[in-house]
């Protein structure tokens, strides 16, 4: 066991899988010599050579299109998009090509790859280094969308994603890159894609979150305890495919739900989870489902701490559903 930060767990997963599988190749802006702007690929080019860790020209659509062709021809690419805010030039390649290839070719061609990208706010990144763009991709059939919240899950989920037969968007909560540490086994292991985890059991209110909002919810749960609400916190971990059972089981127990995400409210993934709960567990509900989310504004710079959900805002929402 090593005590690693989340970004070290990313690197550890890549190192582990590249050692085990010569088809795994990395590509992106600054991922080679410089080891990535967040150092997620530090030293890997030296270890595996320039053919397997490639500094590419500065073009996100090119990075994903290249990875698509490589995957079609037998490689296992793990392209990095330096910030999720820069993924949009590659939207067509991801949505129209990578995600649909298996389907449109009747299963003849596939392009399994893991698109790694740091996402989210709380690092003074302004609106082009802070966005949470998950729903652009959860709305795309053929993609899986994974968001870890701690170092152990990061390594296990990233290895699972690399071994997955389908393309995976792997969103890394960059706010947690160095702010959380945890025990990470040195060997290869996987955390199953499509399984949520109850990270704090509770009986009164279910808090549902992913990525950087998981620690926010855990802190909120601590705030709520002396205020008389025992919160259960679910780390969704995989948005697509969603582990509906873990969510519904908790809702059936508590009857009260707060969903927390950084992305703006309208059409955020919280809306999908909320709809799921109404469709499948409406008779268990004791209060309306409440969402604590980013605002329906572009992501701000100076006032980002006000834009982003924090433990107190979540705790206030818990009070609202508890006392409904």
């Amino acid at each position, binding site marked *: 066991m090593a005590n690693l930060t989340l970004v070290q767990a990313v690197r550890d997963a890549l190192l582990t899988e590249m050692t085990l599988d010569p088809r795994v190749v990395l590509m992106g802006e600054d991922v080679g010599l410089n080891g990535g702007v967040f150092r997620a690929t530090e030293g890997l080019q030296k270890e595996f050579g320039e053919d397997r860790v490639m500094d*590419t020209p500065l073009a996100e659509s090119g990075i994903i299109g290249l990875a698509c*062709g490589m995957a079609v021809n*037998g490689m296992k690419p793990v392209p990095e998009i330096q910030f999720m805010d820069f993924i949009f030039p590659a939207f067509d390649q991801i949505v129209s*090509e990578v995600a649909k290839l298996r389907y449109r*070719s009747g299963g003849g061609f596939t392009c399994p790859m893991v698109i790694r990208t740091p996402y989210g706010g709380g690092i003074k990144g302004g609106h082009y280094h802070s966005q949470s763009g998950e729903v652009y991709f959860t709305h795309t059939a053929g993609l899986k969308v994974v968001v870890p919240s701690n170092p152990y899950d990061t390594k296990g989920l990233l290895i699972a994603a690399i071994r997955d037969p389908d393309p995976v968007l792997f969103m890394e909560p960059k706010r947690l890159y160095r702010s959380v540490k945890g025990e990470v086994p040195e060997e290869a292991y996987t955390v199953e894609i499509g399984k949520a985890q109850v990270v704090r059991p509770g009986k009164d209110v279910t808090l549902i979150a992913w990525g950087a909002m998981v620690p926010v919810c855990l802190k909120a749960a601590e705030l709520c305890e002396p205020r008389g609400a025992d919160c259960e916190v679910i780390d969704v971990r995989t948005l697509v495919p969603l582990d509906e059972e873990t969510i519904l089981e908790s809702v059936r127990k508590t009857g009260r739900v707060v969903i927390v995400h950084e992305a703006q409210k309208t059409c955020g993934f919280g809306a999908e989870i909320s709809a799921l709960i109404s469709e499948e567990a409406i008779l268990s509900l004791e209060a309306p489902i409440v969402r604590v989310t980013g605002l329906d504004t572009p992501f701000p710079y100076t006032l980002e701490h006000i834009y982003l959900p924090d433990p107190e805002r979540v705790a206030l929402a818990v009070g609202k559903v508890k006392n409904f």
Partner: protein
Amino acid sequence: MLEKNSKSKKKKTSSNGHAKAPFVLRPDCLRVLDEANRPNTKVEPKLSKEVLIRMYRQMQMTRFFDERGMLLQRQGRIGFYVPSFGQEAIQIGTSAALKQNDWIFPSYREPGVFISRGASLFEMLCNLWGNASDVCKGRQMPVHYSFSDLRLFSVSSPISTQVIQAVGASLASKIRKEKDVAITYFGDGGTSENDFHTGLTFAGVMKTPTVFICTNNQFAISVPTAKQTAAERIADKAIGYGMPGVAVDGNDVLAVYAATQEAVDRARRGEGPTLIECVTFRMGPHSSSDDPTRYRDSKMYDAWAKRDPIQRFRQYLEGKKLWDAKKQEELEKELKATLAEAVEKAEKEPAPSIETLFEDVYEQPTAQLLRQQEALQKEQELRGKFENTSEAFPL
């Protein structure tokens, strides 16, 4: 069944920048055949009799396939078709320079490339119906073929997405030190797309074994090349990407073959990519939904009609005593019969089953997909048949 737009009474003015000049093939184009279809022996590729005749057969089959595709659409038997009339030399000339293991990333106007690689006519036709024997299980519009076992990549509708993908496929071959190259096709309009730029940028930097074939047929639906680029020649764009660029007479199959062979050899030797601009003219409509008389001067059509690539190649073969009217008659009979048989068989295939809707989204269906499938089955039991309410494309 070329477009008879020479009969059109509508004449477009040239004031809006639309093509106006009568035909003159740009002098920079590599050519083997002159305008009288005599070969320039200095550049004439040395191909065996068998190869020449095979190429001719494939060009002819491509023409017949296109004629049949358009006819089936006009008869209302299929919903849509994209013909490649006049572009047969590019498709067959490039294909003939490839090895069977080379990767092909086509656009949607390359039926001849599929025919040449050996795709089954029956399966191609099943794609036009989108039926149960369509490799793509009826999920795409007609002409979006995909043959993974032949390394014929799945055709996409968004333009030029395949260009950068071909670079990726050829990079994978290069990394594994295999000798396969990748060839990719796109039009003059396609060179305006982002993926053309990234494709050639990456290929130049990474020195991948990729051959880029630009079919400059002078129109992207209705928009002429002059409105796509201010560059004099698309081939000139190559210099900006650090690779050779050549222009060829796209209606001269021997010139196309010679240029492609040279590019493929360079790629296989590890010397990197090449851009080939094949100058031609789209003799048909953009698709079965398009009417080129709305935007195209019939003089251009008439001028290019005199340069029909199949006729030109036939004259070349006749000059070599490899072809004659009797052989032509037999070939037409044979190819048309083969095609008719495949059409008859393909048309009888049923539609794909409802369950196929849920296959191949992921390798394994998710719980959500399985539940949606179950719900749909229940709906079907409840209501019986589903009424087909689709309007004709594109209205």
